[in-house]
């Protein structure tokens, strides 16, 4: 199978929005953003679209950070990749700023849910290459495409920007297939964080988050 790897462009936006949502669901029906902010999946799509339009570098929902794996002119897989904290602020703060800007009152009303979700967060390593929104379209699963895409991005990420020798992936523990796939790519568990309270299960697909690391 001849897979072509490239940076994303505006024509990929619908594929990327779907990828972000499916990656967030981690193989379940739980879309955390819908539950945290009490908004529909359609509103989540609009929120992601608005943030992608802003081209805010240094956080995961930036079109310029996305890479696409393509087969016969069809998008097969994608991921977003950036260096954590390269321009100062961490990706969590940048993304939260963008979300609060577009959500307005809905953000303000969701503070208790956000505090619950924060309980399972693991800080991203400053200067490390971050890989997020890792997704393979259903027709292309089980063929090792995502592993090839990860290898391509790690090998070809602009060397001027790299300030750490590590690549990181953060995911929810319930996503066993993805965990197996990343382990096959050489990623090892580096940290794990479990919420003490089951309330988080009403917001997220799992109460445990895992950080994986791989030497670049």
């Amino acid at each position, binding site marked *: 199978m001849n897979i072509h790897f490239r940076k994303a462009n505006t024509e990929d936006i619908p594929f990327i929005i779907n990828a972000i949502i499916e990656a967030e669901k981690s193989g379940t029906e739980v879309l955390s953003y819908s539950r945290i902010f009490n908004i529909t999946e359609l509103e989540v799509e609009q929120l992601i679209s608005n943030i992608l339009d*802003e081209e*805010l570098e240094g956080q995961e929902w930036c079109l310029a950070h996305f890479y696409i794996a393509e087969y016969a002119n069809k998008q097969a897989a994608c991921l977003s990749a950036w260096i954590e904290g390269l321009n100062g602020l*961490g990706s969590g*703060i*940048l993304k939260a*700023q963008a979300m609060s800007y577009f959500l307005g009152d809905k*953000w303000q009303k969701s503070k208790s849910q956000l505090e619950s979700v924060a309980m399972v967060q693991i800080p991203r390593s400053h200067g490390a290459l971050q890989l997020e929104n890792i997704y393979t379209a259903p027709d292309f699963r089980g063929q090792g495409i995502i592993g090839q895409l990860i290898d391509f991005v790690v090998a070809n990420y602009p060397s001027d920007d790299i300030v750490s020798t590590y690549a990181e992936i953060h995911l929810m523990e319930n996503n066993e297939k993805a965990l197996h796939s990343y382990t096959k790519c050489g990623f090892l568990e580096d940290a794990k964080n479990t919420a003490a309270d089951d309330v988080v299960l009403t917001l997220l697909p799992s109460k445990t988050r895992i950080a994986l690391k791989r030497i670049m």
Partner: protein
Amino acid sequence: MDSPEISKNLQILFARIFNQPEILIHRDLNADMVPKWDSLTHLSMIAEVESVFQIKFKLKELVTLKNVGDLIDLIQIKTQS
């Protein structure tokens, strides 16, 4: 509003938002240096700054802030315009 007056107001605001009465703000201070400075407290801080200084930031302005010095400079520009 001049820079020392902005700093004085920020000192009070930071102590309250980050729940650290002893915090000393300076131009190089950033999120990595304050344990309770996460995405939630950052947004609370920005909302408080907008309220105290009676200004409104644009998203593009907010994402350029790397440290307290950048924040002071931006507040100075916004309060002069």
